[in-house]
């Protein structure tokens, strides 16, 4: 019975197919029912399989269901096969669970949109692709899901394609991801070349029996990590994610916070055997993650667009997940992925609720004092902010602390300090957002204020559920100080992720680290409180004091401009040059010249065509004479 897990991705797929083919003729109510229902059925199946998994012994190995043999070239085979083990179970539950709530929320958020059916068709399609990604049992099928989510991300970022900025953002996301995917494909090809199979079990076996040399493993790990950098918006490929906020807010919540962008983390955790084996890649990943965490957090400090703050925050939190993977704490990385899915989608959806209430306003400079108008949105937003800031007893605290403790335990002190710096900034920018949006003087547009309203139930109830999980989700992975058995989450993942030798930390050290985390979170909140409530003059003073630094950060370190200057403009001018000199002259020249050569010879031959019947007859005669002559002699 537990075999039915392979149906999980196909329910949303069927729904998406129906909506794409017949969606135009279906009534809106039915569309919402089917789209949400399909994801809910998926969630039910995932939960069912999950409980089935709990009851089987871990020695049993992962459940694998091969639907059909897909590629068979010589010795290489790739099946269309799914795998269900603790890691994919958690991912499937997050994707379908959070996805279901976001579908419900979208019913309210998108109710006035004329692309309603198209929206849900793409959202279902995305769910399908993401589930293929997390349930695939080999790299090739995983790549199908990987590209599938990329495509859906493109479609949904550019959902309002009439807006040029949205269409551009969609293309940017797609193209930046291509760069990462080039590395990803190369990694898969190297794997196939050396291991002869892309099944996860075969990869693990190849590492175990020495089929894979360490150098090659490092190369493959790095290439795959480049793919992860693209998908998970790590330095230096992070530029697409902030622009992706052009899409509808629930899309940002589902794709660009909870699920798709975490695919890179999932992939690294899935191949943890390979990454552990390669040895040298881990520190690189940790460093990239830590730099991204800090770098993105600084950019989040000064953004004025409510969704962009959250976008940079997502990049930063993804950095933490990679720190976890980099220092060998794969389980902690996945744990952060799981808690982050709840509180970040909560924050996005709550931000969407604010935007909805203000008739589309996203600039925090035209918000403020919304606390009393949005009695539902405000508390859930606060819960999300507290959770992400790392205040104790909420989910974000446990997962972030697990990562940082492990980094400290591995003696990666630089990473640890960077992580703490990021944590201060996280707390600061989240509460800056809260204070600017919900407290202080109202700076609303009078027109928007007239229509100011709390969101309908269909939007607030999913928010409340997500808020509940943002608080409680962390309790499955309590820190080690509370007992060896406290980390249920890590122990559940053990069949997939072998717990590394613990960096033995004394009980005192562990408590000390937890204390530092708490202090850091509260410090960030305190600074935000001083800056934006007590003495609102300070931020302006700082800006006036350090105008250069402010400009640098406000313009996102000019990364986009650097790419424009270093890559895009040379490409464009180069292309124009090639167009002018190669296309116009060589390619068009070849075509045109061969045409005029044919014309020229035609002209010459046409002199034979005099129009006089007599000449033709003469040619007949000559022909016959020659013919007979040849026959006779």
């Amino acid at each position, binding site marked *: 019975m537990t075999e039915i897990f392979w149906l999980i991705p196909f329910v949303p797929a069927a729904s998406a197919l129906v909506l794409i083919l017949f969606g135009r003729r279906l009534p809106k109510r039915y569309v919402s029912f089917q789209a949400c229902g399909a994801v809910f059925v998926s969630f039910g199946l995932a939960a069912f399989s999950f409980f089935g998994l709990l009851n089987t012994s871990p020695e049993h190995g992962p459940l694998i269901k091969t639907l059909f043999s897909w590629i068979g070239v010589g010795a290489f085979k790739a099946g269309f096969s799914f795998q269900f083990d603790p890691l994919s179970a958690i991912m499937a539950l997050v994707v379908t669970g959070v996805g279901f709530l976001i579908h419900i929320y979208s019913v309210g958020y998108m109710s006035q949109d004329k692309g309603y059916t198209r929206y849900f068709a793409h959202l279902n399609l995305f769910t399908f692709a993401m589930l293929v990604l997390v349930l695939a049992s080999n790299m090739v099928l995983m790549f199908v899901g990987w590209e599938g989510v990329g495509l859906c991300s493109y479609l949904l970022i550019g959902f309002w394609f009439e807006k040029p900025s949205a269409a551009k953002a969609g293309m940017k996301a797609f193209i930046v991801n291509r760069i990462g995917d080039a590395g990803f494909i190369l990694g898969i090809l190297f794997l196939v070349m050396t291991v002869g199979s892309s099944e996860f079990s075969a990869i693990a076996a190849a590492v175990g029996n020495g089929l894979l040399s360490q150098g090659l493993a490092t190369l493959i790990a790095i290439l795959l990590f480049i793919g992860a950098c693209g998908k998970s918006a790590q330095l230096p490929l992070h530029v697409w994610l902030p622009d992706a906020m052009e899409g509808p807010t629930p899309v940002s919540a589902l794709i660009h916070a909870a699920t798709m962008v975490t695919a890179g983390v999932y992939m690294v955790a899935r191949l943890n055997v390979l990454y552990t084996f390669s040895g040298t890649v881990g520190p690189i990943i940790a460093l990239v993650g830590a730099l991204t965490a800090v770098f993105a957090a600084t950019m989040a400090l000064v953004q004025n667009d409510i969704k962009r703050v959250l976008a940079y925050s997502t990049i930063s939190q993804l950095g933490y997940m990679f720190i976890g993977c980099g220092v060998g704490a794969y389980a902690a990385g996945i744990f952060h992925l799981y808690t982050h899915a709840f509180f970040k989608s909560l924050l996005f959806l709550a931000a969407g609720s604010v935007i909805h209430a203000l008739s589309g306003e996203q600039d925090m400079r035209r918000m403020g004092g919304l606390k009393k108008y949005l009695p539902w949105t405000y508390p859930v937003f606060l819960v999300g902010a507290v959770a992400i800031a790392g205040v104790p007893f909420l989910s974000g605290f446990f997962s972030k602390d697990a990562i940082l403790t492990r980094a400290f335990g591995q003696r990666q002190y630089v990473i640890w300090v960077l992580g703490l710096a990021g944590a201060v900034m996280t707390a600061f920018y989240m509460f800056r957002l809260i204070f600017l949006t919900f407290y202080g003087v109202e700076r609303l547009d009078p027109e928007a204020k007239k229509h100011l309203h709390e969101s309908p139930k269909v939007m607030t109830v999913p928010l409340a559920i997500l808020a509940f999980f943002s608080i409680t989700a962390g309790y499955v992975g309590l820190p080690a100080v509370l007992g060896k058995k406290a980390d249920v989450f890590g122990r559940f993942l053990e069949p997939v992720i072998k717990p590394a030798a613990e960096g033995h930390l004394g009980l005192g050290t562990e408590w000390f680290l937890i204390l530092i985390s708490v202090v850091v979170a509260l410090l960030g909140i305190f600074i935000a409180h001083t800056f934006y409530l007590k003495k609102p003059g300070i931020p302006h003073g700082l800006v006036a004091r350090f105008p250069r630094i402010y400009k640098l950060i406000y313009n996102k370190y000019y990364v986009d401009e650097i790419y424009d200057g270093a890559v895009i403009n040379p490409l464009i001018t180069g292309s124009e040059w090639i167009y002018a000199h190669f296309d116009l002259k060589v390619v068009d020249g070849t075509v045109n010249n061969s045409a005029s050569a044919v014309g020229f010879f035609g002209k010459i031959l*046409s*002199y*034979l*065509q*005099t*129009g*006089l*019947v*007599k000449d033709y*007859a*003469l040619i007949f*005669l000559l022909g016959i004479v020659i013919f007979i002559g040849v026959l006779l002699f």
Partner: protein
Amino acid sequence: MIPASYFFLLSVVLFVLGIIAFFLKRDLITQLMAVEIMLNAANLAFLALAKSSNFLDAQVIVFFIITVAAAEAAIGLAIVMLIFRQKKSIKTEDMRSMKG
């Protein structure tokens, strides 16, 4: 008995005369007549062959040729007439509209 080769010779002479006439004359009616002469030269050759080798098929072919020649003459003259109506001329030099 006149030998068959005389008939063949006559046939060849007639045929060559037809060709020469066809190329030297400039009006369509004379050219049509030249074509008829060539056809009849062929007829003569067939008959000579039939006579000399008791080969009856050749005589049958002659009947076909006579029929075709009659039809050709009728259509040819009709075309010449139509051309004359349009161009007021039956000189071949005046017909060059098919020049490439």
